[in-house]
């Protein structure tokens, strides 16, 4: 790739916007996932009985909705990123690309 082209892309405001937005979203979601997963693990490591507590009169404990919740959260947060990226980042990338052709 020509240095010239690299400099032009780097100077493109759309490129800077794309990079800043993608990295901000990526890091926030990574932080959210780490918080949820390691929070779950540490809760089990330090306060085992919390998730073993029954919700009502039946046998189901808080562990079931929380555990299923972590799985669903993992899938949903991934889908959230992908949907936002499909809408926003691809448009911006396309704008950068088109800017370079001219």
């Amino acid at each position, binding site marked *: 790739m020509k240095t010239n082209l690299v400099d032009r892309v780097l100077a493109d405001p759309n490129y800077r916007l794309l990079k800043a937005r993608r990295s901000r979203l990526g890091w926030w979601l990574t932080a959210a996932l780490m918080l949820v997963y390691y929070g779950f*693990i540490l809760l*089990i490591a330090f306060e085992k009985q919390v998730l073993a507590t029954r919700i009502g009169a039946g046998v*189901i404990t808080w562990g079931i909705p929380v555990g299923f919740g972590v*799985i669903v959260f993992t899938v949903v947060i991934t889908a959230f990123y992908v949907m936002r990226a499909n809408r926003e980042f691809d448009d911006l990338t396309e704008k950068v690309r088109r800017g370079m052709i001219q």
Partner: protein
Amino acid sequence: MSRLTPSHRLAVAMAALILLPTLALAAGPDLGEVQKQATNYTAIGMFAAFVVFTLFITKWAAAKTKSAADFYTAGGGITGFQNGLAIAGDYMSAASFLGISAAVMASGFDGLIYSIGFLVGWPILTFLMAERLRNLGQFTFADVAAFRFAQTPVRVFAASSTLVVVAFYLIAQMVGAGQLIKLLFGLEYWVAVVIVGGLMMIYVLFGGMTATTWVQIIKACLLLGGATFMAVMVMMHYGFSLERFFAAAVEVKAQIAAQTPGTTPEDAAAAGQSIMGPGKFITDPISAISFGMALMFGTAGLPHILMRFFTVPDAKEARKSVMWATTWIGYFYLLTFIIGFGAITFVLTNPGFLDETGALVGGSNMAAIHLAKAVGGNVFLGFISAVAFATILAVVAGLTLAGASAVSHDIYATVIKKNKAGSAAELKVSRYTVLALGVLAVALGIVFEKQNIAFMVSLAFAIAASANFPVLFLSVLWKGCTTRGVVIGGFIGLVVSVVLTVLSPSVWEATLGYDKGSAPFPYTSPALFSMTAGFVGIWLFSTLDRSLRGRQDRAGFMAQQVRSETGIGAAAASAH
């Protein structure tokens, strides 16, 4: 075996297939348990159907596999949805299907904690790596890791760590395959290992990534379909009420606990209820975090998974791939939880599935297999057995392809021939490597038959998290990273994770047989320490790097960043 021509190999495999029923019968009279399995023609027939069907796909794929690009990445023509299914097919191993459902049957909630660990790496891969990988790479993850660095040292590192990860993962699959098939089909252990190795070689050798992808897609559909059927049948029995279902499982566990002499009714009830909450799986926080890190970051560093991102045309499809993969894998782990509890209520209560001591016939990993028979009869048992076999094939095919590409693309074409090898020569080396890896996998599978290899998959994850992930992560995102840093730091991560695993209880005590409690490294996974060592090593040796090469490495960052973020300048992987 390696002297046979391709058409001979096909003939041998077909012959082995036709012989299957005879072999199964011949093995019959030795053991009661094997005899029972051997009469199961349904399983053999369904597996044969799967094999014949996939061999046709391989034939079709072989016609399309002309260049190295076709061989490594199916010409880049796989869609995001297809790739998502294939990734799921690559990732959902027989060990996770049978092992996790068995773990849930044995200890309930702990099995769920375990399976969640295998899921949380996927979002990390999506948020930080997937698109950038696709934009930078062509065939292997080393393309990405070595993008702006000196090719030879980084490729040598990447190929070494790929081969180490692949070797451990592969041995685990082969030994698992041998034992499982011995049980399900009544075949000799070595025959099972040879069949798996032979079929895997046929798929990869002739059909390359195209055949491997379709084997994985078909297997993913069969496994998801079969597991869904089992979960639905189980839940239907309880009128789709989770409360009734779990209550029945707790009751069964309480009754089993009450059979131990001297157990009070209160203790028995508590033992039953214990499957609904965390048990012994997580005891010390260091082990828990370390193991969690190995799974979370290891997923983003497994070479056979990373390779799948180069089969799609662009970053958008790469992103969609992980979304679908995460969805299917997450769904699958929810199903295994239901299946594990279903095994408690359907299998543990049925004397037909238990031996005199109350243990499962055929070992604890048979939970899902017995449940298949309980809810769907012999035909469904045959189906699930065939799916388990197909699952192993799909996983080993992906692993072999990743190992072969590391040798032919990274070592042969880039390091030895300095990119002047030509597609045909590279393809040839790739195929020879597949043969060599296949023979090696069969040999190692037979050698390790009686060994305790439970540590191998988690070791593969730990190495991927400690060597591959830091190298990829810092080379893509950190400007200051240099050739010297990634090579030294990467090897530090690799060596530390292997050494600490050998010193940990799972190898020191369980495999090497030293006294319990004597392991020098007390934790279950080395990742917390080895991943830190990998990151610190890369950072330290990059920062201290004052060489000319180091200056070039840093100067190349902006051009790499532009391409990783936008794909501008990226060659579409499509066929040339």
